[in-house]
């Protein structure tokens, strides 16, 4: 291929030269070039190395179907592999390099004598490394892990940057009546017709210019400009550099808009790309068709490309891609290109596989009929093509032609991908030798060559008709066709019994022989063929190769193409960067951060925070260089000795109000709530329908018809949803209103022997929270000094005399200032989640780690709480025989046998004699207990503490800290009678 830039012609701006680098060399192109056209104009032929065999590859097309010129663009954090040079716009300073090669694409050691060739026949990975499951499960897996790295190095697809993506991406939502995909003759007409009918139309085009096939025809420029003006004048919203990559349910389309990928100077205000979610009333697919090749020896050499691509390089980029050109065709579509190339000064031979071509002979073009390429010769370029003809059922050589460029048209494949996303199964049309779009009941309409319509004027009419259909007028769609002489289908040229490197899927290096090998080995389903050979699984998703592969498979099976079937296309049509999918949901925005109303106050007072679900909560409050271990032990000890204050605002809080509120709670909770007096709180456990524990918490009766229910932090949302479901779907007769008030209250727990006097010091003069006025589980309204109204409940999670105090969220800081002053003067402390855990483990109180959805109320040891006098949710199914077995794992406390030892959460509890398998139970939490002076744990074990009184147990943790002999004890490890909290 001796391509050269012509002095005139094309759509490039010769007054605006653009410098860029290719493999470190500085080259020059023009504004309006793609990277591929600029490289071609600079005489660069070998632009890539193939995936498996490291064969030289050059430019094969001029669009998204490119399988040869796949390069890496950008440097450092912006390095992006697998960019198709044919769609990358050129800009000043663009830095591109070849990939899959070392040291460079022109001299690649991996390619020496096809070094890896025999390793890469179909199914090589599976046969060699994966074993034969299930009989040899795991066999070879270790080997695979080793070899995979080497193979990937030899046969890679470029390497992505390992640095964080420096760019940002946006998510945008949009609506329209009619979405038109593609701005060629059919798309522009469709958009215009729909807009003129008053519809809100969105037109998207993946190219950087509007016009589709008009752009390849200098004679159509006036028509193109007029049409674009009309479209814009009719109010159509137009987006270029925007690919509709997928269609989804209910008229939703996914678009990727490339905003800055073509710019030399990035605007920091602009996202790199935008990910659009468009909801369209109807969708018109004017997505065009892709010209395909067929298989013959060395059909992947640089200097072999599609005939349409040559026309694009000539008419858009002003390049004559070869001087001595052979055009091989099976259909009419190459004749315009042949004439234009000849007029531009090339010697052109058309080798038309049909015995007669019905299109007029262009001047200066030689025609050979009935022949097709058998083999291409030349190493890093084309030097000669050997031809063959098909007689009496087999191919025989039929002459040779010297040339520097071979253009191939094996036919056209309509882009039916998007409607296939919606389940419209493409239908094989034998007379057009292509799959046409299938039917769907959804308002999706194909127009133009994506519907197998080949003539431009027919495409324009088809666009108008599709628009009429999309807006609900009952118009017939256009019929496919338009060749003057029918296509003569051709998928492979090879002499009988000859093995060759004739490629079907260029990007994944799948050959015709691979397809036949797969068939020999029994892979007769197209889906199996695809996976076994990896045909159509590269970044182009088989845009060029799928149909050739299918045809060869059909031939091997002795079937027709439609009987072999086609695989369903899936989004995305072209690759979408992960960054675009993520949008702004990265780093701190990956998930929402929930802060309690006391967040800043906690930080000001030395809190180290930890994540608890979405919440940030104080973990511990270190003093004087303490680490976490010293800090939490001190905090827990201080609570038991004097007083501690802990932010519990993250607990879920639900206001349950209405005349039937008590009845509602009585049904929801396993224990009785109907007779809970006003001014009292009760701890409750609610079950799921299946009888397992769902959540626990306290509920305070504030008035006859008003309750405040607290939930665990984790289940706040789930419980609220459950309440709404029950009230709306199951018990609609109950007059109850529920509202989430979690964020409305700042809540704090004050625990320890000095908690009462600490709080008393913070109340308005005369307030009474004595044991008589506010007994255990009592609830009351109080006023803090300074006039802030508060709710107080005498509730203990720590086992100490303890209270929860709630004020309106905005008064949280004021409450904390008061409390902390009073607590500090009494030797108190602030405590965090870690000490909270210590205190509750000492008492054997359950949290989310214990209520993991697999336990019954009996397993937790709280079965006696469940009412026997009333039915409640789960009361029936908790009686299932398996749930009543006495050997079910039950909640226990765990001490190390040697009290100086420690063990870890997550250990399995085993019988000391059989430390194996799943064991007899598990450890849900451990802590160092300052009250007991050693490490303790909480967990579940078969049969509970009674069953293990005499039985030695082991906390097994073989991969981390090893096994520790333990004693199984009652979960109530500290103050089992509860004297302290009633005091």
């Amino acid at each position, binding site marked *: 291929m001796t391509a050269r830039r012509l002095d005139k012609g094309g759509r490039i701006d010769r007054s605006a030269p653009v410098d860029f680098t290719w493999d470190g060399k500085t080259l020059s192109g023009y504004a309006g070039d793609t990277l591929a056209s600029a490289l071609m104009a600079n005489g660069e032929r070998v632009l890539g190395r193939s995936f498996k065999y490291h064969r030289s590859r050059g430019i094969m097309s001029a669009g998204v179907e490119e399988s040869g010129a796949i390069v890496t663009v950008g440097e450092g954090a912006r390095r992006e592999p697998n960019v198709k040079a044919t769609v990358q716009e050129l800009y000043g300073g663009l830095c591109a390099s070849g990939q899959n090669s070392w040291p460079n694409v022109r001299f690649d050691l991996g390619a020496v004598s096809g070094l890896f060739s025999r390793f890469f026949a179909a199914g090589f990975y599976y046969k060699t490394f994966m074993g034969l499951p299930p009989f040899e499960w795991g066999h070879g897996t270790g080997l695979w892990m080793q070899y995979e790295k080497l193979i990937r190095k030899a046969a890679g697809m470029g390497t992505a940057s390992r640095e964080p993506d420096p760019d940002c991406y946006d998510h945008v939502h949009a609506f329209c009546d009619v979405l038109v995909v593609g701005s060629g003759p059919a798309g522009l007409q469709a958009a215009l017709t729909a807009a003129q009918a008053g519809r809100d139309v969105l037109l998207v085009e993946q190219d950087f210019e509007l016009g589709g096939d008009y752009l390849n025809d200098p004679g159509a420029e006036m028509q193109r400009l007029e049409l674009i003006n009309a479209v814009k004048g009719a109010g159509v919203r137009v987006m270029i550099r925007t690919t509709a990559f997928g269609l989804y349910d209910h008229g939703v389309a996914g678009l990727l808009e490339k905003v800055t990928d073509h710019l030399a100077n990035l605007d920091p205000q602009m996202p790199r790309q935008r990910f659009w979610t468009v*909801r369209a009333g109807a969708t018109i697919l004017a997505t065009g068709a892709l010209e395909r090749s067929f298989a013959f020896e060395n059909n992947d050499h640089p200097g072999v490309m599609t005939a349409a691509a040559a026309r694009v390089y000539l008419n858009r980029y002003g390049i004559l891609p070869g001087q001595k050109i052979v055009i091989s065709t099976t259909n009419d579509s190459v004749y315009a290109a042949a004439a234009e190339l000849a007029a531009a000064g090339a010697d052109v031979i058309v080798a038309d596989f049909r015995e007669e071509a019905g299109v007029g002979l262009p001047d200066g073009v030689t025609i050979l009929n009935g022949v097709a390429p058998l083999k291409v010769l030349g190493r890093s370029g084309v030097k000669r093509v050997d031809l063959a003809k098909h007689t009496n059922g087999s191919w025989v050589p039929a002459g040779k032609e010297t040339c520097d460029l071979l253009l191939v048209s094996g036919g056209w494949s309509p882009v039916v991908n998007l409607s296939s996303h919606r389940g419209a199964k493409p239908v094989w049309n034998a007379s057009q030798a292509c799959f046409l779009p299938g039917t769907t009941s959804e308002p999706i309409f194909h127009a133009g060559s994506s519907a197998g319509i080949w003539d431009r004027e027919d495409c324009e009419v088809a666009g108008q008709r599709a628009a009429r259909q999309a807006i609900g007028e009952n118009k017939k769609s256009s019929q496919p066709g338009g060749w003057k002489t029918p296509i003569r289908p051709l998928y492979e040229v090879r002499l009988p019994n000859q093995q060759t490197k004739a490629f079907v899927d260029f990007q994944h290096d799948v050959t015709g022989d691979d397809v036949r090998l797969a068939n020999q080995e029994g892979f007769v389903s197209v889906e199996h063929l695809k996976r076994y050979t990896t045909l159509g699984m590269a970044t182009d998703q088989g845009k060029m190769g799928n149909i050739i592969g299918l045809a060869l498979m059909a031939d091997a099976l002795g079937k027709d193409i439609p009987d072999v079937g086609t695989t369903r296309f899936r989004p995305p049509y072209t690759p979408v960067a992960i960054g675009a999918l993520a949008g702004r949901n990265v780093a701190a925005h990956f998930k929402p951060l929930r802060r309690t109303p006391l967040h800043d106050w906690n930080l000001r007072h030395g809190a180290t925070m930890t994540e608890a679900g979405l919440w940030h909560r104080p973990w511990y409050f270190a003093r004087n260089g303490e680490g976490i271990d010293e800090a939490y032990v001190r905090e827990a000890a201080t609570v038991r000795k004097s007083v501690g204050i802990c932010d519990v605002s993250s607990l879920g809080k639900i206001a349950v109000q209405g005349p039937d509120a008590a009845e509602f709670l009585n049904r929801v909770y396993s224990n009785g709530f109907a007779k809970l007096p006003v001014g009292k709180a009760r701890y409750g456990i609610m079950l799921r329908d*299946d009888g397992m524990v769902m959540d626990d918490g306290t509920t305070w009766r504030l008035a006859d018809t008003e309750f405040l229910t607290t939930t665990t932090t984790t289940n706040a949302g789930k419980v609220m949803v459950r309440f*709404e479901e029950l009230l709306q*779907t199951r018990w609609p007769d109950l007059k109850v209103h529920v509202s989430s008030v979690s964020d409305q209250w700042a809540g704090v727990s004050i625990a320890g022997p000095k908690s009462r006097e600490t709080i008393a010091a913070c109340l308005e003069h005369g307030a009474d929270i004595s044991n008589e006025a506010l007994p255990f589980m009592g609830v009351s309204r109080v006023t803090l000094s300074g006039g802030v109204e508060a709710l107080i409940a005498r509730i203990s999670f720590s086992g100490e005399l303890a209270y929860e105090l709630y004020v309106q969220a905005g008064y949280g800081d004021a409450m904390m200032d008061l409390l902390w002053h009073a607590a500090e003067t009494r030797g108190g402390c602030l405590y965090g989640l870690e000490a909270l855990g210590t205190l509750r483990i000492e008492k054997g109180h359950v949290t989310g780690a214990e209520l993991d959805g697999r336990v019954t109320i009996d397993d937790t040891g709280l079965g006696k709480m469940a009412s026997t006098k009333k*039915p409640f*949710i789960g009361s*029936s*199914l908790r*009686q299932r025989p398996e749930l009543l077995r006495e050997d079910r794992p039950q909640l226990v406390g765990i001490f190390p046998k040697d009290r100086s030892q420690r063990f870890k959460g997550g250990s399995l509890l085993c019988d000391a004699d059989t430390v194996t398998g799943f064991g007899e139970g598990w450890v849900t939490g451990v802590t160092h207990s300052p009250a007991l002076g050693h490490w303790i744990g909480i967990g579940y074990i078969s049969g509970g503490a009674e069953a293990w009184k005499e039985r030695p147990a082991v906390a097994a943790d073989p991969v981390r800290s090893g096994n520790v002999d333990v004693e199984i004890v009652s979960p109530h490890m500290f103050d089992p009678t509860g004297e302290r909290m009633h005091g």
Partner: protein
Amino acid sequence: MIRIPCPFCGTRDHSEFTYGGDGTIEYPALDAPKEDWHDAVFLRDNVCGMQLETWHHVHGCRMWLLVERDTLTHEIHSVRPAHPGLAAMFETDQEAGE
């Protein structure tokens, strides 16, 4: 992405909703035998075609809805409030409007 016409909020993306379950289940009385509860909780048809199901407009009006959806095509056939009283009000409104 399917879209659900919420009777209270209009047509919204399904990402605003959470799927509940089979909308045809009649839950037994709380004190019904465990066999009845077993059937209601564990036995489900695997419907291919139109199915009545509950959805919760959790990031919207927080209403539970009864949605007739085709499990094969995702076509939404009808949507009404799961609360029978509210559903009846909607029907009366529609009749009055007609």
